[in-house]
């Protein structure tokens, strides 16, 4: 990112034209306050205290399934092909505040409970249609919550999962090169090229 990109992004954020532009920002920003960021570990001065227990392989695989329901394979590969779960786990571990980590982990249980309630099955055992119905309902819930959310209110766990799924997928090699387009060394700039519906977007700008 450059300063101009950052400024443009802030411009859009502040202007409120693109709510989704905060994806990259909330990806690593605390949901409520910064007060827990930088808490020192008394045993290791200089190290941020991080008592977060890493997600186990089962949980990571679970996240991959959630991500794949949000961004499934279509004419291009989906989140499962990009193995998004482990990336989400790394982001929760390293970038989230302890507060957001707790919301996220509790969210896994909430999602599972919601699945049981909706279909009498856990998320993993649910059919693709049941998964989609469930996550569509949860997305509606988070949208309504976010609409009236004050900055100091906690984040909604499903918004976190959706954000991390999108970040994880579209910035992965598969997402960036198969779902989107990426050219490492463009070599030139053309500010006016034809575009037709269906052409893929650039992964980065």
């Amino acid at each position, binding site marked *: *990112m450059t*300063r101009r990109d950052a400024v*443009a992004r802030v411009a859009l954020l502040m202007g409120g034209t693109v709510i*989704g532009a905060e994806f990259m920002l909330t990806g690593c920003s605390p949901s409520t306050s910064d007060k827990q960021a930088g808490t020192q570990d008394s045993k290791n001065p200089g190290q941020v205290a991080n008592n977060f227990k890493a997600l186990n392989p089962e949980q990571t695989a679970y996240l991959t399934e959630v991500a794949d329901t949000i961004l499934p394979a279509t004419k291009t590969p989906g989140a499962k092909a990009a193995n998004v779960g482990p990336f989400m786990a790394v982001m929760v571990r390293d970038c989230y505040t302890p507060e957001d980590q707790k919301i996220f982990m509790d969210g896994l249980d909430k999602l599972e409970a919601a699945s049981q309630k909706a279909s009498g099955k856990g998320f993993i055992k649910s059919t693709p249609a049941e998964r*989609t119905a469930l996550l569509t309902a949860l997305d509606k819930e988070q949208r309504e919550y976010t609409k009236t959310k004050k900055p100091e209110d906690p984040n909604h766990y499903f918004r976190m999962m959706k954000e991390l799924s999108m970040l994880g997928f579209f*910035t992965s090699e598969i997402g*960036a090169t198969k779902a989107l387009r990426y050219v490492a060394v463009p070599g030139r700039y053309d*500010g006016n090229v034809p575009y037709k519906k269906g052409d893929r977007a650039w992964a980065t700008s």
Partner: protein
Amino acid sequence: MAQNTYDAIVIGSGISGGMAAKELTEKGLKTIMLERGRNIEHIKDYTNANKAPWELPHRGNATQQMKADHPVLKRDYTLNESNLDYWVDERKSPYVEAKPFDWFRGYHVGGRSLMWGRQSYRHSDLDFEANAKEGIAVDWPIRYKDIAPWYSHAEKFAGISGNRDGLSVLPDGDFMPPMEMNVVEKDVAARIKKHYKDQRHMIIGRTANITKPHNNRVNCQYRNKCWLGCPFGAYFSTQSATLPAAMATGNLTLRPFSIVTKILYDKDTKRAKGVEVLDAETNKTYEYFAKVIFLNASALNSAWVLMNSATDVWPEGLGSSSGELGHNVMDHHFRAGASGEMPGYEDKYVYGRRANGIYIPRFQNVGNDKRDYLRGFGYQGSAGRQGWSRDIAEMSIGGDLKDALTEPGAWTMGITGFGETLPYHDNRIYLDKSKKDAWGLPVLTMDAVIRDNENKMRVDMMSEAKDMLEAAGLKNVKTYNGGYNMGGGIHEMGTARMGRDPKTSVLNGNNQVWDAPNVYVTDGAAMTSAACVNPSLTYLALTARAVDHAVGEMKKQNI
């Protein structure tokens, strides 16, 4: 002593220090360039420059540990995973904020020339005459004609791409071919020109990215990864341009890990005789001697070196006789503007990642235009199509969402003002001797704020941005004021200003310290006013001009 004696010493290796070293060595002076931090070798040490986005574990984002380690850097986009090593270790080098002050530093060879924004503009006489006309602070001791040839000199060497737009507020330079506006920007520019009857202009940014091969450097490849260090050497930095030129003369010695703690002043000759250096690795102290010293440690640290060079003769520091050393801190306040959506153009897109944007030069208080504040601002911005991170309100989750996000969204455009900050005597920095850095050296306290004039300007930055974008056909235009702390523009200036009178300025019209004429300060510290344009090109020009003066004075045996 003999082995530590050179013709010239350059303190700092960033944009202006690198230029000083190049100019001095090309004029035949044996020169040592002292850099407080580590070396970063061109290309070889650009660790992440060739990595794909997915090769970074957090895809560029900051971790909680990074935030804890960089309590200042985290205040802006500057804290990120991809070039973290280019930013100062804040734990080792703290400072005190009497008022909030964002100080984003690069302590290594090349300094911030590695991460800079590269926008390069000339000042005009509108800027050089403003203080005198308005009775603000002191008059610049130079006018445009004094520096114009040196702007050319700097531009030709650095390689500045830009269009010759023929605007008096923003003089044209010796440019490489301009980068291109995209299709929406071109139409917006044409509509602004028409709507404002040729009184306002939107131009392509003038940037220190070369658009054709130049001095063994490869032209810009449109990767937009400049701040990782460019493996093509396509943007101007110490590493890509001035350092190799200086090394090629055989006259340069580069000494990293060299913290200059003071300039050694000889009260008999009334000249500086050298500098004291603390080796940042070994903590050993050395002295280096030279006939002339160029102080280019960046605006605030150059003032620090002068203040820390206090003697019986100058108890408040070398160059302190006027009482202005450390005062008149300036920056460019920014992050107020507007953005909106451009309907249509769905059949248009771009190829390549342009490391440049558009620029709208200052139009306030120009000619017959009058505002309720002094000076003015320019806008930087760009238009582009939204990417995958946009919100699609009518979609939830699933294949439709994914497929929609794999296509570009609507065209949007945002502009943000970069405004002039007036030189207020009360905006100052000073040594805090009660607090020490990792080397036991006193640190700086920052005591500076923007005031009424700047705050009025910020309101105008928003409303003019909205009017102009709407006049250009953008819809759903929203203004924003993202807040600003002094220093956040990363254009610190003014702490050892140039002037015509030793009673009211630290430097004379040739950037010599009045109190020690063989010491030249040619970084942001020298600025008498800030103008509203990005300042680095002016530092390059002032530096080359000052070196020319210094060499002339040495020949005449005046210094």
